[in-house]
């Protein structure tokens, strides 16, 4: 796989799945922009890790839900590095995945949904919108959006979170149609429960065991398990794939 020199932006990359994706791109020779919201120190650790492995990377702060801040970041990337080849929309609004404390349907407020929609779709929207003119001008680009397998199998119904991610799937497919003629692909990766990450810390042993038992491959995902599919969508191997979603959950969802 040759991602050498590909200017790659990973949002929410200071920790969890995002950090692993950033590192994986770094290992493949991409130039990685590690976007973060608050955790400057952790973002720096990711950058250090990539550089220690011989890769190239830099950290950039931006709130993906803030249109201007995203536009400034993307303009800065293109200004400094001359292009933007790959974006990975991984950032998500803070959310606690606790099966015991989750809200039931009858306790949900419209604001809960709004917050997730704002964060998940809104964040991806801002990034995609900001890079579009550049990718069109380059006659190509890769957009990869992180979803969840809960869309297809809501083992634990996190209503607001999963609904927003389902919306992001719809957004991605529509985007793929309009951007395909410009040589830009839009694809999604839908991980199953991924442990350990900050978000999944409160998903306790019993639930993890139960999911592992239902999973053909017999375990829940670790952050490193997610990276391959993202790299694939960014690679030349996936040059003619767009509007697709790969489930990375050990076979829990099959479709």
């Amino acid at each position, binding site marked *: 796989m040759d991602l050498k020199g590909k200017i790659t932006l990973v949002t929410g990359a200071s920790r969890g799945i995002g950090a692993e994706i950033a590192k994986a791109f770094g290992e493949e020779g991409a130039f990685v922009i590690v976007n973060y919201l608050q955790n400057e120190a952790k973002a720096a650790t990711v950058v250090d890790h990539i550089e220690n492995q011989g890769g190239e990377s830099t950290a950039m702060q931006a709130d993906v839900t803030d249109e201007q801040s995203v536009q400034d970041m993307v303009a800065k990337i293109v200004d400094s590095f001359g292009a933007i080849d790959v974006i990975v929309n991984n950032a998500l609004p803070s959310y606690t995945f606790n099966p015991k404390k989750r809200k039931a349907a009858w306790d949900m407020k419209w604001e809960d949904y709004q917050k997730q929609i704002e964060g998940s779709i809104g964040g991806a929207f801002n990034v995609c919108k900001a890079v579009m003119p550049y990718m*069109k*001008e380059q*006659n190509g680009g890769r957009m990869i959006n992180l979803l969840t397998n809960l869309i297809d199998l809501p083992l634990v119904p996190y209503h607001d979170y999963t609904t927003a991610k389902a919306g992001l799937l719809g957004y991605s497919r529509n985007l793929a149609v*309009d951007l395909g*003629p*410009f*040589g830009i692909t839009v694809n999604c990766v839908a991980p199953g429960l991924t442990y350990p990450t900050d978000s999944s810390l409160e998903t306790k042993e019993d639930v993890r065991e139960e999911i592992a038992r239902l999973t053909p491959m017999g375990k829940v995902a670790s952050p490193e398990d997610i990276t391959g599919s993202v790299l694939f969508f960014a690679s030349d191997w996936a040059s003619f794939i767009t509007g697709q979603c790969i489930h990375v959950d050990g076979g829990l969802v099959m479709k």
Partner: protein
Amino acid sequence: MRNEQQEIEAYFIPDTIQLTSFTTRELESKQGKLILKYPVLSGEDIQCITETIKANQKNYLDKLQTTEVIDLVDAAVQKWLDPDYHWRQLAETWLPVITGYDAEMIRLELKRFLRTFRKKELLRFLVEEFDDPAVLDDFRPRKKGGLSKAYGPDLILHFFSGNVPGLPVWNLVMGLLVKSGQLGKTSSSEPLLPVLFAKSLEEVDPELAKTLAVLPWKGGEDQLEHPAIQAAEAVVAYGSSESVENIRKGVPAHKRFLSYGHKISFAMVGKEALTLDLCRESVHSLAEDVSVYDQQGCVSPQIIYVEQGGSVSPREFAQLLANEMDHYNRKKPRGPLLESEALAIQSFRSQHEFQIESSVYGHPDDTSWTVVYHPEPDFEPSPLNRTVHVFSCTHLEQVYPKLSSYRQYLQTAGVAVGPDRLFKLSEDLGKAGVSRVCAVGKMAQAPSGWHHDGQFNLLNLIRWTDIETSAEQHAEQYDEDSE
């Protein structure tokens, strides 16, 4: 045919004439080897050939009815429409090697082109220019009295073009329709197809084929061209402005001279065609118009004017076009270039990369396609070989002043505009010098019977003889049986 050595004559002459001296040119490909046999010609050869052709024209072709000629041409064309026809297979195998054009592109375009010479198209072609095509056979009454007959030249000398394979077939067919003997000089870039077509005519009717010769020689060889021009009643010349001008100098004023020199074509896309649902079709069509025969045909656009105000901006149109050009190139790769041609594209690219206002989209690794976007309209020819300008304009009408200094060169305008604008636009384009307005996507496929470069085709070749009413009436008094 595969992996074999094959020899074929790169000339065609009436079979009663023997040539004695030859050279060869060898072509190799993975299909094997082809040896093209070229005659070494003298002025006497030309004289002998033209005399023979003229005699055969007089004794045979001139006596055929036009409908019979049409049937014979149709029979030859029908052979070519069979994919298994041996000459078609030979052409499909070797034209890509000779011309450098993509094999699949040749296969498709040749077939499309030859389809325009079937009987029904030939009939339409005649009616296009003659109210009563029977004037080519006999004196026919005129509405206001008298009778007229049209005579084709006894011998037409063609200087064939070499940029688009098959085009000489069009010239040969025109000559046949006016029942002329014909000598065609092939271009070194495509010496094969006219010869093969003559062979097909020979298969259909050996006598008819004796009124034809197709010969290769290096343009400008006076000792051959002089006797050829002397013998011909009409000269039809294709080529660069310079070579056409050189030929013209050698043609005496009393001889008919038709020329088809350098032309430039362009396209116009109105904002009504730039909706999200319709735009892609225009982009796709234009990528094909630009790419076909590597833009060597004069009908291929070098410039596209795109109007602002649609859902897709002119810049986005250029970006979309770039991607479509790439798709076409993957399907049908451009042929290899001379170093000078590749350099021309590279300097064209860098010249525009330096201009801050324009954007260059091109294949990242080579020169196989290039789109240059400009925010203001202008008129600038491209270096061809799949390079095209996209000019943004606030209104298409803004473009006309830019065309004025190129008036003599303008040919086809491919348009994507609404019905309410088509007439006005065509009127203005006509004034500007454009001779053909067609849909985008059809630029490279001129229909039979078009006014090539704004002229008649057959009418320009023939001369008329009128029997005036007075002669008719006067003759009556000498009727011995008159009362």
